[in-house]
C-alpha cells in the first residue's frame, strides 16, 4: 500500500499585498513549503477583480502535520485581529511521503 498519512491543508484567501507576510509566517512556523495561486473574487470587502495591483487576491495553501496547525492559526488570527481580511479554512488530507511535510522550509 501507499505511504499515505493524515495532514492538514490550510487555505488562506486574501489580498496579494500580504503575500510576503504569509510566507514569513510559514517559515517561522516550520512548515515545509507553501503554494500560491493568483485569484480574484468577491466578499464583504467588495470585488477583487485582479485587474489592478491592489485588487488582486491570492489563494495560499500550506500543508502541515496536525501538530503544527494550531501555531499557524494563531498567527492568522493575529492578522485578522489587526483587521486584515483573511478567508481561512482547514481541510483534512492524506499526504504522500509524510516525512516531506515535517522538514521545515530552509
Amino acid at each position, binding site marked *: 500500500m501507499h505511504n499515505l498519512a493524515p495532514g492538514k491543508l490550510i487555505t488562506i484567501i486574501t489580498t496579494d*499585498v*500580504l503575500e510576503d507576510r504569509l510566507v514569513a509566517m510559514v517559515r517561522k512556523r516550520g512548515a515545509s513549503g507553501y503554494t500560491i495561486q493568483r485569484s480574484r473574487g468577491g466578499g464583504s*470587502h467588495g470585488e477583487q477583480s485582479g*485587474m*489592478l495591483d*491592489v*485588487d488582486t487576491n491570492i489563494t495560499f495553501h500550506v500543508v502541515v502535520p496536525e501538530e503544527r496547525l494550531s501555531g499557524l492559526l494563531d498567527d492568522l488570527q493575529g492578522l485578522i*485581529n489587526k483587521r*486584515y481580511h483573511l478567508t481561512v479554512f482547514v481541510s483534512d488530507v492524506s499526504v504522500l511521503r509524510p516525512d516531506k511535510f515535517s522538514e521545515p522550509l530552509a
Partner: protein
Amino acid sequence: MSALSNLLIPAVLFFALGFLARVIKSDLRLPQDLAKMLSIYLLVAIGLHGGYQLGQSDLGAAFNAVLWAVILGFGLPLIGYALLLFTRRVDRMNAAAIAAHYGSVSAGTFLTAIAYLDSAGVSYESYPVIMLAVMESPAIIVGLLLASWSRRQLAGADEVDPSSGNGGARRQWKTLAHEALTNGSVVLLLGSMVIGAISRPGSMEKLSPFIDEIFMGVLCLFLFEMGMEAARRIREFRKVGPVLVGFGLVMPLIGGAIGIAVGHLALGLSIGGTTLVGVLGASASYIAVPPAMRLAVPEANPSFYLTLALGITFPFNVVVGIPLYHHLATLIAT
C-alpha cells in the same frame, strides 16, 4: 471651446470609450496583466525622456523642483486629512488612508495632461516629471504617520489587538518607510530618469522610437483600461456617500490651485509646466499608494480610497480638471 476641442484627442477619447464599455456592460475583459505592463512601459518611457532632458538642464532648478515636490507630498495629505475629519463621514483611519492618496500623484492623469498640452501646442519644462517621481514617497510616509497617530488616538476604543501596539507598530514603521522609498514605481521612474541622464550620448537616439513614437498609442490603451476601471469604481459611489464624493471633487481643486501657485510662483515655470504641477497637486495616486495603505492601514476600507481616487477624482481631472488647470495657469501667468 478650444478647451473642449482639446479633449477630442485619442488619449481622452479612449478613456471615455473604456468608461462607456463598462457602462453599457460590454463583456470585454482585458488580460489581467495588461494595465501593469502598459504602466511599466509608460513609467520607463517618461522616465528616460525626462531624465534625458534633465541631464541637459539646470540642476539647481531641478533640486528646487524636488524640494517643492516633497513639500507638496507632505502638505496635501495633511489638508486632506483635516478636511475629511471635518466632514465627520469617515473615521480617522480611513481619513489617513484616503488623504495619503491625494499627496501622491496619478501618472495616468499626468500623461493625459501632457497629451492635452501637446495637442494644444503648449510647451512645458521637464521638471514636473521628476516631481512626479518624488511625490509618491512622502505621501506614503505621511499616510503612515497619520495612521499610526490616529491609531494611538483610537487606542482606548480599539483594544482588540495588543500586538498592533508599539512592537508591531515599530516593525510596520520600518517596513513602510522602506516601502515608501523602494516602492516599485518610484524605483522604475527614478531609475529610468537616471539612465536617461547618464547614458552616453548617442545611445539614447536608438531608444527614441521606443520611448517617443509609440508612446501615445500605448497611453491610449492604458487610458482605455483605466476608463473601464474608473467606471467599475464609480458605481460604488453610493457606498461612499455624497459628502465623500464631494471631497473627491473639491480636494483636486485645492491641490490643483496649490500646485499651480507652486509651479508659477515658487518654480517660475511656463504655462505648460505650471499646468503640469497643478495636475500633480490635483491628482490622486491609484498605483503606488493603495497597496501601501492596504498593507499599513488594514483598518481602512479599500473601496473608500479606490472609489475616490479612481472613480471620482481621476475622471474629474481628465475631463474637467486638466482644461481648468491649464486655464488657471494661463490666467496667473498673464
